[in-house]
């Protein structure tokens, strides 16, 4: 919608950019952004305006304000990964996905907050502080907590965004941008998408280039897309997907961007409900919603069957081993010599490396590096690392079997509960939380499959609940078509932001009408 508005001149790119920038300022409390690139954004908006005046916009994304998670390299803009290790690091290049968006004329507003090095499921463990879920300040949430909250409690009642792409999710959810990039290794795009009431797409591994995305787990990382509706996600996907010679893990098949059809007949669809996803800790509320979601498909004539992915419960353990092992390797590049933080210690190379790393990394990162090194020791390699790789194959095969039996798409909850208050979340440590929260999203990364979280309904506490669709490898079109149909059926309510955004309700009506396509 906003793209059409830009084309017809109802609003100009610079106006749009300025509104977003001022909205970012007034929603500072959310702490969604680490860096706001005001000057460059305005310049980009001006360039876009010139193109629109000539009647030559680059495409649907021309002039659209976007945000990028701070673990993507952005030329000339600080890239920190929310860590002391990279504070002050100004990227000398653009990640391929960033470059592609800029080439389409998108306006890069800034870098969003995350858990340090994308390790975590709450966006609470970065050095710039936690991200606050915009829904904490919504009328819907406040109405439900009115009975319990006193005015002193209100401040500390805010809920987390989920993670680790929490900043990106919060940015899209609070209307400060129209789309954002996240990353997804264990659910890091889908988890915050569900908690913030936005669409979170994890593409098939190998579809979108990881060049420039600071790596966590090379065999599972993918860039993630966060938008306010499924159609928008398809548009962004269209501009990002495809082979990149700079990332040899991208497949060479030709990718054709697609527009999503509006499905009217779902009778030929087969929806699978994996019973193991009824995991311990799943709230009764979400269980009930799951049933309702399945009924939506049933009543429309689709085939809905229960399926089994027997190794689901080992997915998180497997992830734990493979992730820490790859992290131990990937984090070895941070030694202070070429970029990033460097300690003053200079007695020897090794002691400088050690001091730099103890100063630069937080507990979570150091913990994972040490665990990873343990699992990679010669005496443990076979029993832990290789073992985990074998279990990985079993998990991937589970999906192959299910999809091979005629199921088109799987339907599962994205999270176990709605967003918890920050004060409660921090009572457990990062690893425990990640292990709990990633349970429903992790397996898709193990198997490299595409998955999308679609905002479905509000919980009893007035917070968003999202449901996840998992599709076949490289069948994003089918996956998104089903997701779009579902989105239409559930009619998820728009967030009614209050306190955080004190200005000008009316002026933002344009942006509030959600989508840009």
């Amino acid at each position, binding site marked *: 919608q906003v793209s059409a508005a830009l084309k017809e001149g109802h609003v100009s790119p610079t106006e749009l950019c300025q509104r977003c920038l001022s909205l970012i300022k007034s929603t500072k409390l959310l702490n969604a952004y680490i860096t706001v690139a005001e000057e460059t954004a305005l310049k980009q908006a001006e360039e876009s305006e010139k193109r629109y005046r000539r009647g030559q916009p680059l495409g649907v994304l021309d002039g659209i304000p976007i945000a990028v998670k701070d673990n993507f390299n952005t030329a000339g803009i600080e890239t920190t990964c929310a860590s002391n290790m990279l504070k002050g690091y*100004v990227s*000398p290049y653009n990640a391929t996905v960033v470059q592609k968006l800029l080439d389409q004329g998108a306006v890069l507003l800034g870098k969003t907050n995350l858990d340090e090095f994308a390790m975590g499921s709450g966006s609470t463990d970065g050095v710039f502080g936690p991200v606050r879920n915009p829904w904490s300040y919504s009328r819907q949430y406040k109405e439900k907590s009115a009975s319990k909250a006193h005015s002193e409690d209100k401040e500390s009642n805010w809920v987390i965004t989920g993670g680790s792409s929490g900043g990106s999710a919060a940015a899209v959810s609070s209307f400060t941008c129209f789309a954002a990039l996240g990353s997804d290794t264990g659910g890091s795009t889908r988890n915050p998408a569900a908690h913030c009431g936005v669409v979170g797409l994890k593409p098939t*591994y*190998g579809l979108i280039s990881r060049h420039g995305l600071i790596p966590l787990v090379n*065999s599972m990382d993918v860039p993630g897309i966060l938008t306010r509706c499924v159609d928008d996600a398809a548009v962004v996907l269209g501009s990002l997907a495809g*082979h990149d*010679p700079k990332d*040899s*893990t*991208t*497949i*060479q098949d030709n990718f054709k961007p697609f527009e999503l059809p509006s499905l009217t007949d779902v009778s030929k669809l087969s929806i699978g409900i994996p019973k193991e996803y009824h995991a311990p800790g799943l709230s009764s509320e979400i269980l009930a919603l799951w049933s309702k979601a399945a009924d939506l498909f049933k009543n429309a004539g689709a085939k809905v069957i229960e399926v089994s992915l027997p*190794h689901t419960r*080992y997915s998180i*353990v*497997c992830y*734990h*081993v493979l992730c*820490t092992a790859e992290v131990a390797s990937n984090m070895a590049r941070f*030694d202070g*010599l*070429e*970029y*990033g933080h*460097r300690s003053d*210690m200079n*007695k*020897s*190379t*090794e*002691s*400088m*490396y*050690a001091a730099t*790393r*103890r100063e630069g*990394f937080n*507990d979570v990162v*150091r*913990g994972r590096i*040490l*665990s*990873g*090194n*343990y699992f990679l020791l010669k005496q443990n390699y076979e029993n*832990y690392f*290789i*073992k*985990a*790789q*074998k*279990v*990985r*194959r*079993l998990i*991937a095969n589970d999906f192959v079997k299910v999809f091979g039996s005629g199921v088109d798409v799987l339907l599962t909850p994205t999270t176990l509960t709605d967003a918890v208050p920050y004060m409660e979340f921090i009572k457990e*440590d990062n*690893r425990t939380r990640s292990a709990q929260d990633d349970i429903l999203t992790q397996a898709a990364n193990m198997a*490299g499959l595409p998955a999308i979280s679609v905002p479905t309904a509000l919980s009893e506490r007035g917070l968003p609940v999202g449901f996840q669709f998992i599709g076949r*490898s490289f069948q994003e079109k089918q996956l998104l078509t089903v997701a779009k149909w579902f989105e239409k059926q559930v009619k998820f309510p728009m967030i009614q932001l209050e306190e955080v955004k004190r200005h000008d309700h009316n002026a933002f009506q344009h942006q509030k009408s959600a989508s840009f396509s």
Partner: protein
Amino acid sequence: QKVTVEMLDHLEHLALVDFRDAEGVERLQKAIQFADQLHEVNTDGVEPMDSVLEDRCLYLREDDVTEGNCTNELLKNAREKVEEYFVAPPGNIPLPKLEERETFLQRS
């Protein structure tokens, strides 16, 4: 089984990060315990999986230089440099042994 101090020291050497405190050590203990659940799974005859794209051929570029000459750009982010060199402190000096290092592990 608890992890020995020698093992912890060995890991600190390999990783070049520190455990910092009892919590850090406890974290490793719990991580190992958690990972031990893997042994419940029967993986007889199963091949390890390195990548989900294992059935495809990796793309290799032609061995031609197409970009580069960005020395200045890259040196910008280094703290210590001389002309076109990154400067490192003297190498080949091993990390001090446990008794001589300032590390939490000394006290255990």
